[in-house]
């Protein structure tokens, strides 16, 4: 076995051990940097690189040689300008410095609630997407079709280019092939409703003005976000990534009533199928730690803020903890201070297993970090966070039979057809067409919903 293959094997086994409730040989170093940071590292024009992701490869290769990580140091990107531009997105726009950002937008009006509750997918396609994407205009049907076709081609092209770079690096440097965006991706129903449908301000009003409709809308959206997050292959190692947004800005009472039930159910239903989730607890979740404890065993909790001791104490036996180490340290502290600090985090978070090293959040700019600090922190974790009791059981053990959830209602819409529905309408079609046609149906569903997250 080559050195690279042997290293990859080691990396696979440390991640799998964590997910299999065992103490790994060492703590996995889960550092991956966003597209923008690596483009800047490579001295590329950010705008040009985002329009032509292939040109980032050289910079990616160089950063992979420079920074230690057990997953590919290049995260890829979720947001390329091509498809947003083609569809004239209101919700994702490039600012003057080349960063694609998400301004506050309202894709759904208060009067749309009833329709959303009755026919969620129809409402999203007929009302919300056309408001958010001006070139997806049902009043101009031919151009709407052309623009949509162009955008999905652009989407496939850009994601394929960055995906190929990641695959290449995984092969070349023997990374663990399970980066953040390699499994499923979805949002909590309440966040889906808040982010691009009602907007932060809109949902803040709705919580007060029409809480019962908010709750009903979360239930109506549930089958959509559930389906959206399903990973293509289910195993103990694939993760569904769910960034959580609104709870730190809400009162606990509203959270308990409006946010938590559909979110908890989502994770329970995935767990009943043997699917695990990585949730990013954006901002400060200290007041919700008891809720997080209730989530299925081995949920990976990525914290941005919080007291590591308290978090480890309350959640560390049941869940996998990651995050917390402030990425800001890499800019404001010396190399020695960064190293001391990371040892302190490891000493608290690593004992007993169920810990993966990551920063509290991804850096936004290359100038947000001093490279020598980043390298020193990554290498310290690799060399310092080594277990002497590898192979022992780590905390509570996941058992999918513990999770029983009534199956959710199916997605029903005139814009989405199961094979049986399609076949009933087109009885002449050969069954040989089934995998291809059904796959295309799923692809379109995922792309349309991706436009709203």
């Amino acid at each position: 076995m080559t050195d690279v293959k042997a290293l990859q094997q080691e990396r696979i086994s440390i991640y799998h051990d964590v997910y299999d409730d065992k103490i790994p040989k060492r703590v996995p170093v889960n550092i991956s940097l966003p597209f923008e940071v690596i483009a800047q590292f490579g001295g590329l024009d950010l705008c040009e690189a985002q329009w032509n992701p292939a040109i980032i490869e050289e910079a990616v290769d160089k950063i992979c040689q420079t920074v230690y990580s057990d997953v590919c140091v290049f995260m890829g990107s979720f947001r390329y300008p091509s498809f947003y531009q083609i569809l004239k997105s209101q919700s994702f726009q490039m600012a003057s410095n080349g960063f694609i950002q998400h301004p506050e937008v309202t894709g759904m009006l208060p009067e749309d609630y009833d329709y959303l509750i009755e026919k969620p997918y129809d409402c999203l396609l007929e009302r919300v997407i056309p408001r958010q994407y001006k070139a997806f205009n049902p009043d101009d049907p031919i151009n709407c079709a052309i623009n949509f076709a162009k955008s999905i081609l652009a989407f496939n092209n850009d994601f394929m280019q960055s995906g190929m770079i990641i695959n290449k690096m995984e092969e070349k440097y023997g990374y663990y092939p399970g980066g953040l965006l390699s499994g499923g991706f979805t949002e909590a129903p309440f966040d889906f409703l808040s982010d691009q449908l009602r907007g932060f301000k809109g949902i803040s009003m709705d919580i007060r003005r029409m809480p019962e409709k908010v709750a009903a809308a979360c239930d109506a959206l549930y089958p959509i976000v559930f389906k959206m997050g399903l990973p293509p292959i289910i195993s103990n190692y694939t993760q569904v990534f769910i960034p959580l947004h609104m709870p730190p800005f809400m009162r606990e009472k509203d959270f308990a009533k409006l946010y938590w039930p559909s979110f908890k159910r989502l994770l329970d239903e995935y767990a009943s199928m043997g699917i695990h989730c990585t949730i990013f607890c954006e901002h400060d979740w200290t007041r919700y730690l008891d809720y997080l404890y209730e989530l299925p065993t081995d949920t990976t909790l990525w914290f941005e803020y919080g007291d590591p001791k308290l978090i480890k104490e309350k959640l560390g036996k049941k869940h996998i903890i990651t995050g917390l180490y402030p990425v800001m340290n890499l800019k404001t502290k010396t190399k020695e201070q960064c190293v001391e600090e990371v040892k302190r985090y490891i000493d608290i978070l690593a004992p007993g297993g169920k810990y993966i090293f990551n920063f509290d959040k991804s850096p936004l700019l290359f100038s947000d970090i001093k490279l020598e600090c980043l390298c020193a922190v990554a290498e310290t974790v690799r060399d310092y966070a080594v277990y002497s009791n590898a192979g022992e059981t780590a905390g509570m053990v996941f058992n999918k039979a513990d999770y029983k959830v009534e199956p959710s209602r199916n997605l029903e819409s005139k814009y989405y057809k199961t094979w049986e529905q399609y076949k009933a309408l087109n009885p002449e079609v050969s069954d040989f067409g089934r995998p291809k046609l059904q796959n295309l149906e799923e692809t379109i569903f995922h792309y349309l919903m991706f436009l709203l997250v």
Partner: protein
Amino acid sequence: MKNLITVEDLIIKSVEELDEEKVIRLASKALKAGMEPLFLLDLIKEGVKRVGKLYEDQKYFIADLIMAGLIFKEVLELEEMKVQFRRRNSKILGRVIVGTVKGDLHDIGKDIFKGLMEVNGFEAVDLGVDVSKEVFAQGVIKYKPDIVGLSGVLTSTIDSMKEIVDTLVDAGVRNDVKIILGGSHLTKEACDYIGADCYANDASAGVKLCKQMLGKI
């Protein structure tokens, strides 16, 4: 008299409880019964202040501040209030121009700050998002504000903020204004580097600082 006191308390309390419908109902009724619009405004402000206090005590959160701002705006939209405000707008504590700086499109923090400033008696001019240094400089010359509020969420905004302050220095207007920065990523070091007068990690703290800078508290 007893009734009047009850109405006042009720108005304050329903703002504090963010009961929008009740506030509007009580406010309309009170105005029709002859309550002075400026007196009503003071009651609403008192309610909003209590919301701010609950926010500081972590009983309320940002979603609640947004709702309080909305209720305040709705009261101002009542016909009797609009008439009053067209006639008398001289009683302001100061004028502030606010904007999210170049490179950043986030507007929630800026909007909350602007709303709270208005509640607290400031006149606020909103320059929008992704605002360049030139537009800030022109804004200072045109509106002659007491305070310039630079808002940003992204860490990259530190450099934009510095450029804006430098431009105000070059334009010779830096010393005519106080500059406050708003954003959860800001620190004392960042503020010194940028050359602003102060910074706030949340909107309600920002309002207090603005009042302090103008010697209003």
